[in-house]
Every structure is written in structure tokens, then in C-alpha cells.
């Protein structure tokens, strides 16, 4: 079989391949529309501006919001993006799409199963589904199928990588495919944790086992739950590293360092989940401190990313003869909604990163744990940089895949700015509530007029105002998306991944050796979690029966 090495992405994907990628994206957008609508209702409820009916209470809606946005929207977008990155840069004469379609069907079946249980009230357990809250077993089975589906996507990526290696021995995997592969190696290792948790939860939910080890399920959940956030952010990084330079018509700043950043994320995203359990009983402080160290270290590849991206901006400005901060910023293509969306997303991520370092700071967690600060933090990370980057790149990706021109560029530009403004307002108000002590996950924050609670209400109103702006942005996105798909003018929209610098020597072999990095990642997990798990199984742990408390 003949193959082309094509790191610049000039190779064209077939209509059949495009349909598969679009099918992932459309599920993601569907989840986005429903999930964000629920989000607005939640902000209005907490601000005491509306009351949800008992047949669709706050917690049922909050579970749907969290699952649809944090798990379904992100996962389907990233599986679509990763599949596209691989298909676009690894050319094959006849590529079987069977594995890809099976993955999509399994993911969708699982999503529908879990969504049905949530919407009908069988699983108001929020997206963290902490035992011993006991949901319907079909909720856990649905969530498991969603994850198993992503493993099949991973298999599809590996099969394509294998075909590339066979046809191009000794050649490095094209950068976008490499980034997708590294992301999915990390994802696979992370999801093993939640898969084991499901093996405990499912028989228990069916009533076949009488009790559950609550702390163990929490450790397994967060072993998965923190790399989950890196899974989201790596989806955005693929776009920042490989698409944004193409928009600016400059090469990737450094192919080798991009690969290095991704393998560092692969290794360092996994052994840090305990920082979500800083105030849990039953886990010794020394293991929490060890993971604090690793959590701070994972900031380094993010700062490498910031450097590479700003260097790219500077290089593009230099090509136009512009120097100095103000001139560089002004020279950037702000009228392009794809660029503007990604750039605004990066600004939000600066604040997301700052907050993240606060959250990682060990005993300081008592100031923010389970407060609205945390909610503000993940809205200015997954809801800011990640979601906004995904929406912005959709203005390029959907036209490129459907063969229809974007319906309105100016509406797209308005949309990304509305998102930026809405998310800024909402997350600032959420962070502030948190610092004032307001708890997250409460339908009513009046607390019968307690003095401390009186300070929270004004900021809940500001949060709701941000929610209104955000939903307006989503409506603008939906209008543009449907108009593009159903009424867009037919025509080609070129999608190009940025090429490596022609004079850059290939990255050293060890950087791109995903097998070796997988071993390193597993060893680091053993080091970081070994002590905590050893302690846990040494202690006499009581199993808890579980309850449906909603």
C-alpha cells in the first residue's frame, strides 16, 4: 500500500471519513445545547429568580448539566477531533471505517442509556457519582459503554499508526496524529481507574453485593477524574499547537518540544488525582503532599505551551514587520472568528491556570474545597479555554467537513466574544462566592437568612447574568451551525494543520517513543498511589450499603 507523509495536512479526507468525524461533532453539539440550557436554569435557581418543578429538580438538572457538558460534549468533540487529526495526516488508500463507526455507536448507546436514567430521575448523583449514592445500574452501564467506545476510538488510532509505521519505517508520526495518540494513551490509562470503579459499582447497584468501599471508589474516581481534565485541555492544545499557527501562516514553533509537552502531559496527568481529595479522611497527609509536588510539576508543560504559542504570535507579527507587545497584539487576525475564539480562550486559561495552582496548594484547599471557587475554576478551564476553542475551530472544521461555507462570519465573531464576556462575568462571580464561603452543589443558598449567606446572593445574581450572556452565545452558535449545514453555500473551506519548520531536525527518537512513556507513566502511578492504596488495604474498611436519597 502506498502512503504519503503529510504533516502539513494537505491530504484530503474522503466524504465517508468526514461523515464519521461529523457524527462525533454533532453529538457533542447536541449535548452542548441541552447542557448549557440547563446551566442557565441552575444559575437562575441559585439566584432565587426561578424555581424548578419537583418533577425536574435542581439536582437532576445539575447531574444532566455536568454529564452532558463535562463528559459527553468534551469526549465526543475530542474523539471526533482525534479521529480527524489521524485521518487527515495519515493518508491511506482504502481505510476501513468499521472500527470508527463501531466506536461511535457504542459511545452513543452508552450516552443515551445514561441520559435516559438521569432525565427520568434514576441517577441524580451528579457527574462525580460518589458512592454510596446509589443510581440505577443502567446509569453506570451507560457511562461504562461511553468509555468502552472511546477505547475503540483509541484502537482505531493505533491501527492507523501501525499502518503508517509499516509504510514509512523510521519516519516520525505526523504531529497532529502524534498529539492525538499521546492524548489517547493517557486517556486509556486514566479510564482504567473508572472502569475498575464501575466493576465495583455495577454489581452493587444491581444488589448482587451488599456494600461498597466508599473511599476506594473515590480514589478510583479521582485517579480518572484529574487526567479527565487534561484530556479536555489536550484537545484544545492540539488546536493551539497545530491549527492556530496555520491560521497565522507560520510553522509550528517547535515540533520536538510540542511532542515533549504531550508526553509530559501523558506522564504527569495521571499521578495527581489525590489533590481532589485533600480533605478526605483515610488518606495520609504524606501521600497528599507527594501528589501536590507532581500536580505543581504538570504546570511546566502548560507553561511550555504558553511560550510556544506566544512565540508563534510574535513570529507572525515579525513577518509583517511588527515588533513590540501592542503592535504584535494588533497585528493578529482578530476579525477571524477561529483565531479570535482561540486567542480569547487562551486569555481565559491564564486565569484558569492561576486558580489551578491555588487549588493544588495542599492545606490551602480548606479555603476553597467544595465552594463555588472550584465551580468558577472549572468553568474558566473546561468551560472557557476548552469549550471556546472547540466552538471556534468548529467554524473551520464544520465547513471543511460538510463542504458548505460558514453562514455568517460576523455572527461567529460576536459569538466568541459573547462567550468570553459571559464566561468572564460568570466565573469571576463564582470565584468570589467561593471566597466568601458559598458552597457548590446547593439548590438554595439562603440558609434561612444566616449572616454569612447574605453576602452570597448578590454574586449569585451576577453569576446568573453571566449565564444569560453565555446562553445567548450558544444560541448564536446554534443558529450559525444549522444555517451552515442546511443553508450554507456549497464550496471548499481549506483546513490545514501547520507544518513543522522545514529546517528543524527531527525530534530525538526517545521523545516520540509512546511505548516507553507509557511504562514511565505506569511506574509513576505506582509510586504516587502505591502508599495510599497500601494503607487502604491494610486498614479494616467497612462496606456501606448505599441509598437513593433523591
Amino acid at each position, binding site marked *: 500500500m502506498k502512503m504519503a507523509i503529510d504533516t502539513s495536512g494537505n491530504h484530503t479526507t474522503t466524504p465517508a471519513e468526514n461523515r464519521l468525524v461529523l457524527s462525533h461533532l454533532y453529538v457533542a453539539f447536541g449535548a452542548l445545547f441541552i447542557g448549557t440550557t440547563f446551566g442557565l436554569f441552575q444559575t437562575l435557581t441559585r439566584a432565587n429568580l426561578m424555581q424548578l418543578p419537583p418533577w425536574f429538580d435542581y439536582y437532576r438538572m445539575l447531574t444532566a448539566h455536568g454529564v452532558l457538558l463535562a463528559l459527553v460534549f468534551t469526549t465526543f468533540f475530542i474523539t471526533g477531533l482525534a479521529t480527524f487529526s489521524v485521518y487527515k495526516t495519515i493518508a491511506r488508500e482504502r481505510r476501513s471505517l468499521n472500527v470508527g463507526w463501531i466506536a461511535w455507536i457504542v459511545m452513543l448507546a452508552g450516552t443515551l442509556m445514561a441520559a435516559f436514567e438521569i432525565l427520568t430521575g434514576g441517577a441524580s448523583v451528579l457527574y462525580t457519582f460518589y458512592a454510596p449514592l446509589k443510581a440505577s445500574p443502567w446509569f453506570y452501564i451507560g457511562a461504562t459503554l461511553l468509555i468502552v467506545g472511546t477505547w475503540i476510538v483509541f484502537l482505531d488510532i493505533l491501527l492507523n499508526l501501525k499502518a503508517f509505521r509499516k509504510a514509512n519505517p523510521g519516519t516520525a508520526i505526523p504531529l497532529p496524529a502524534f498529539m492525538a495518540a499521546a492524548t489517547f494513551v493517557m486517556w486509556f490509562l486514566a479510564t482504567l481507574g473508572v472502569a475498575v470503579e464501575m466493576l465495583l459499582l455495577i454489581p452493587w447497584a444491581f444488589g448482587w453485593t451488599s456494600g461498597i468501599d466508599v*473511599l476506594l471508589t473515590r480514589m478510583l474516581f479521582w485517579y480518572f477524574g484529574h487526567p479527565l481534565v487534561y484530556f479536555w485541555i489536550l484537545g484544545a492544545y492540539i488546536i493551539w499547537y497545530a491549527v492556530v499557527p496555520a491560521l497565522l501562516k507560520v510553522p509550528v514553533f517547535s515540533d520536538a518540544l510540542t511532542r515533549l509537552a504531550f508526553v509530559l502531559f501523558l506522564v504527569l496527568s495521571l499521578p495527581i488525582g489525590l489533590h481532589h481529595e485533600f480533605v*478526605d479522611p483515610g488518606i495520609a497527609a504524606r501521600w497528599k503532599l507527594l501528589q501536590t509536588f507532581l500536580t505543581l510539576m504538570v504546570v511546566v508543560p502548560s507553561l511550555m505551551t504558553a511560550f510556544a504559542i506566544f512565540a508563534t504570535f510574535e513570529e507572525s507579527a515579525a513577518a509583517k514587520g511588527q515588533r513590540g507587545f501592542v503592535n504584535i497584539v494588533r497585528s493578529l487576525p482578530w476579525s477571524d472568528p477561529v483565531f479570535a475564539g482561540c486567542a480569547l480562550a487562551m486569555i481565559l486559561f491564564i486565569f484558569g491556570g492561576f486558580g489551578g495552582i491555588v487549588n493544588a496548594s495542599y492545606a490551602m*484547599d480548606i479555603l476553597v474545597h467544595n465552594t463555588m471557587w472550584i465551580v468558577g475554576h472549572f468553568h474558566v478551564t473546561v468551560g472557557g479555554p476548552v469549550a471556546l476553542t472547540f466552538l471556534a475551530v468548529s467554524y473551520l472544521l464544520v465547513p471543511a467537513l460538510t463542504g458548505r461555507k460558514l453562514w455568517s462570519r460576523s455572527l461567529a465573531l460576536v459569538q466568541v466574544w459573547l462567550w468570553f464576556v459571559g464566561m468572564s462575568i460568570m466565573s469571576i462571580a463564582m470565584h468570589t462566592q467561593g471566597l466568601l464561603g458559598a458552597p457548590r452543589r446547593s439548590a*438554595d443558598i439562603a440558609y434561612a437568612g444566616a449572616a454569612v449567606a447574605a453576602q452570597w446572593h448578590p454574586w449569585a445574581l451576577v453569576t446568573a447574568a453571566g449565564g444569560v450572556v453565555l446562553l445567548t452565545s450558544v444560541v448564536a452558535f446554534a443558529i450559525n451551525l444549522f444555517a451552515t449545514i442546511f443553508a450554507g453555500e456549497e464550496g471548499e473551506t481549506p483546513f490545514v494543520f501547520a507544518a513543522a519548520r522545514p529546517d528543524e531536525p527531527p525530534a530525538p527518537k526517545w521523545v516520540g517513543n509512546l511505548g516507553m512513556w507509557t511504562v514511565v507513566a505506569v511506574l509513576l502511578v505506582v509510586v504516587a498511589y502505591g502508599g495510599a492504596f497500601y494503607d487502604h488495604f491494610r486498614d479494616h474498611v*467497612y462496606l*456501606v450499603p448505599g441509598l437513593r436519597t433523591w
Partner: protein
Amino acid sequence: MNIHRAETFFIRVAAATMLAFFAILVYLAVADRFVPPSHQQTIDPATVTSTAPFDHPGLVRTGPNTYDAYYVARVFSWSPQNLTIPLGSTVTFYVTSLDVVHGFTIPDEDVNVEVVPGWVSTVKRTFRKPGKLLLLCNQYCGIDHSAMYASVTVK
């Protein structure tokens, strides 16, 4: 590997900054015992209400100005519902749950710990300001989660 000089400098500064942050946290942990609540004691949730000291939740004096406070969490209430703490005293809270996971927090005083059934959580605090404080559950526990609160009076 070919790394730009400016980037080498940047990576070093980034890594050094993170190491400095970590050094501060280690210093605070060692010098000030500023560590997150991490008590490792199991308890059978089925017999909590009949086991001392949780069979009589409330305040127990342990020294001239020190107290232990025992709390039991269940959906959707705290026991004790009202507690009075002498001004200026240091209280160690021992909290456990009869059913699901709860969160024990006094937002005014930075008391904040997860309460996991089968385990006893502890958190220590010196109360230097008088007043009626709100104690609430900050981990989702079910439909009436936001009604799960109590009061602590410092005087």
C-alpha cells in the same frame, strides 16, 4: 534536541517557580503543621449511634481551654443541631456519617472536611471571634441537601 535559548530560560524559570511554591508548602507543613485534615480511623456506620462517643454527640472538655466536639451526619441533618463553644477555645471536631458522603464546613472559620461513611474525619480550630456561625453540608447528599445545616455559637 534543538531548543531555543529563550525557551530554555523560560522552562527553567517555570520549573523553579513551581519548586519554590512547593518549598513554601513543605515549610508550612513542617513549621506550622499546616496540613490538610487526614485522620485515618475507621468506624462501622451501622453502629455509630450506639458507640461512644458518637452515641452522645456534643462538646467534651479535654483541657483548660481545649475541647473535642463529636458530630454525626445523616440525610439531612447534623447532630448536634446547636453547639455552644467558649470564646477563645480550641476545638477538635470528630465527624462521621451514618449514610452517604457529606461535607462538614463552617464557612466563617475555614473549617472544611469531607465526611465519608465508615471513617472519622477530624479538623481543629481555635475560635477567636464571638458570634452565631452557620455550619452546613457542602457535599451533595440528596434532594434536601441545602436544608442540611446547623448552628454553632461562640461566646
